[in-house]
């Protein structure tokens, strides 16, 4: 039984982690595409339309991979997590079905027009198509985060006679406080992925002295929007997420921070390896009293450590949770530094000539994918051992009749399939970048 639970968890974790590589890029890029299309409309400069077309191609490839890897996600709730679905389907099915009805139809209808209908639609119609694709993808993000937000912080439900969870307030499900901040935090993360990708391609063109005109537009757009997003990622969205966890998931906070013992004026661990068996942090590098301040806005506040909670309330992967959280925060800090520095160079008109800064921007391109992934691992491992926080344990949520052999079989299948998709994706994106934004006549 233990093995099949682990395999079911890995199955979901693997497929959702791979899937989320693509939506974070498309959700970020679609905002930048609307920006470029708006610029083109207002200046009447064809340069911005070419720039938008180039990114629309990359968007199109990424979107296809997002769609085909996304379909398995909804189905897995039923295939691998049947007991969870049977209990909670009446609640989370609402937001998942709404995602299909309200956002996927919108996206799929207007993406085709956006990618292939520019001539037919004219400039204003094409701007609207782009705008509706943005709306659809951001709405989709909201409804998915609302599903996750409810699992993190369930509200608006009651429990029926057979243990089934019944929806009792639609608006509490949809306008969950947790969801609002988690969504804001997720979306600034996605915008950073888009901005870093755009700036990295721009920096590559400038460094390679190729399509430099476009390189400047990409770097400038990426850096300006990216700086705003990087700052919003930390404050208020990241800060509020942290405080919600402090308030509603205190064992999670303790595990994330590697705080084994309750402490007044708790320090913030920057580095160190949690040793769960001996309940201590090895090789710690800490800022004294900082954790107390961040969580309760008081330098001497008391922060509960893991020792304040019974063992069966502890997240079951403390080390992984600690590392993914620290990786996310560390990278987020680096993003702020990189973007602010680049923005400063930009404001001095020195960015396009500063080769080392362009190198940094180019090499930083893939990092937000890691940060976003680490952030989701933090959210999901932090919720453990619950699939619905304090309501249903993960171990009771799996499909009772699906055996280890079958789960392992399909997990291996997905791994093979997704390896092929990764190779294809990189190959096709490389071709687009190599082809460049100049229109072929």
């Amino acid at each position, binding site marked *: 039984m233990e093995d099949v639970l682990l395999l079911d968890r890995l199955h979901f974790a693997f497929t959702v982690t791979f899937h989320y590589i693509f939506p974070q890029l498309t959700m970020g890029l679609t905002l930048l595409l609307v920006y470029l299309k708006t610029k083109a409309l207002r200046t009447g400069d064809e340069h911005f339309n070419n720039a938008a077309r180039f990114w629309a*191609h990359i968007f*199109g*490839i990424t979107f*296809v991979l997002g*769609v085909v*890897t996304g*379909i*398995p996600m*909804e*189905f897995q*709730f*039923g*295939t*691998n997590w*049947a007991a969870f*679905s*049977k*209990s*909670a*389907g*009446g*609640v*989370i*099915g*609402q937001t*998942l*079905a*709404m*995602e*299909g*009805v*309200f956002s*996927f*139809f*919108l996206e799929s*209808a*207007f*993406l*085709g*027009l956006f*990618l*292939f209908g520019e001539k037919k639609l004219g400039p204003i119609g094409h701007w609207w198509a782009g705008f509706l694709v943005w709306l659809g993808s951001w709405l989709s993000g909201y409804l998915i985060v609302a599903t996750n937000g409810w699992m993190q912080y369930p509200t608006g439900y009651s429990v*029926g006679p057979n243990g*089934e969870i*019944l*929806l009792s307030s*639609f608006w509490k499900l949809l306008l969950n406080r947790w969801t609002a901040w988690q969504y804001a935090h997720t979306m600034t993360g996605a915008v950073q992925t888009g901005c870093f990708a755009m700036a990295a391609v721009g920096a590559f063109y400038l460094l390679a002295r190729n399509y430099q005109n476009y390189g400047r537009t990409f770097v400038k757009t990426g850096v300006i929007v990216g700086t705003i997003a990087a700052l919003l990622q930390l404050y208020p969205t990241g800060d509020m997420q942290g405080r919600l966890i402090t308030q509603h998931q205190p064992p999670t906070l303790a595990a994330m921070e590697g705080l084994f013992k309750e402490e007044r004026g708790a320090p913030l661990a920057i580095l160190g390896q949690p040793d769960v068996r001996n309940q201590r942090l090895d090789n710690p590098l800490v800022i004294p009293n900082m954790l107390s301040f961040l969580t309760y806005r008081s330098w001497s506040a008391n922060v509960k450590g893991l020792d304040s909670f019974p063992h069966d309330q502890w997240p079951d992967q403390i080390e992984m949770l600690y590392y993914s959280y620290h990786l996310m925060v560390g990278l987020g800090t680096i993003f702020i530094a990189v973007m602010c520095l680049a923005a400063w160079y930009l404001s001095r008109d020195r960015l396009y000539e500063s080769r080392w800064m362009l190198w940094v921007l180019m090499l930083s391109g893939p990092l937000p994918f890691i940060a976003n992934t680490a952030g989701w691992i933090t959210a999901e491992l932090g919720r453990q051992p619950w699939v619905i926080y304090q309501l249903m344990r993960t171990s009771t949520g799996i*499909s009772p*009749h*699906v*055996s280890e052999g*079958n789960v392992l079989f*399909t997990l291996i*299948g997905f791994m093979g*399939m997704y390896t092929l*998709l990764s190779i*294809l994706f990189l190959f*096709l994106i490389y*071709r687009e970048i190599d082809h460049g934004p100049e229109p*072929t006549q």
Partner: protein
Amino acid sequence: MGTLWYWLVAFMITTYVLLDGFDLGAGTIQFLVAKTSEERRQVIASIGPVWDGNEVWLIAAGGTLYFAFPSLYASAFSGFYLPLMIVLWLLILRGISIELRNHVGGDVWEPMWDFLFCASSLLLAVFYGAALGNVVRGVPLDASGYFFEPLWTNWRLGEETGILDWYTVLVGVCALAALVMHGAIWLQMKTAGIVSERAGRAAKRAWWGVVSLTVIVTLVTFGVQPQIRMNLSARPWGFLFPVLAIGGLAGVRWNLTRKNEAKTFAASCAYLAGMLICVVFGVYPMVLPARDSVHSLTVANAKAGEYGLKIGLVWWAIGIILVLLYLSIVYRSFAGKVAGEPDSRGQ
């Protein structure tokens, strides 16, 4: 309220089959109707802007099923674990074949994706049919409300059924024939020149297959699932649906010989809808019949809470009106036949 949602989910699944059905069928017969790379490009162009939206009906129907009948979703999806996963892999392969075929071009790249597109479309049609066959035949649900079916056991309709047995494979082949006809009719309508002519001939040939398989499957099904006959005698208005299916088939033949391309397509839709609604009508009030009928999942024991179903109706109605609006925009901008025109990059 449960019965209403039963019909709404059925409506969404039927719409999915009508829409994705034509692109599955088109994929299956593309080598038959399109001999050159340029002709196959036409086939892809005739479904390119819509296939993704068609597939959204599957996702939306799945989501709706999830919140309206959580127990059904949980039982059926975990019980059909392997075929569902295979369907997912096929959907992945098919999606990328359609989208990536025209990205690179050349005599290695294009045939590879064309083959994958054809094979995945064909297998999907058979699997969907077999899935329908499983629902009609009933599955080995136990007292816990769950079951697990291996892909096949002894190919018989005993207690230990598999996903594939002689009956479900028969339904799968019938579904394949029906979607091949549907896809051929779509291609006849949306493409021009030689491709359209070949598609018309393929539709005529497929029609005979569809007629004979429909007769066989219908006769066999009355034996396999007695509930259908009971429902028909209890509610004689249900005879409307077989009549719709037969009328659709007759309409296909009538219009094919007279080259009324749009009417042929409408008739094919009527046939598919009629057949599917026969099943929907026939198994009611069960949503998933069990081999041992005491364990069957019914509308009453599988539905979600009343409040959720009521509030769902509000947003669902608004959502579907919006969807119909988008679809009318998309299909209007995509009206007429596709010529072999180049794609956005001039390739």
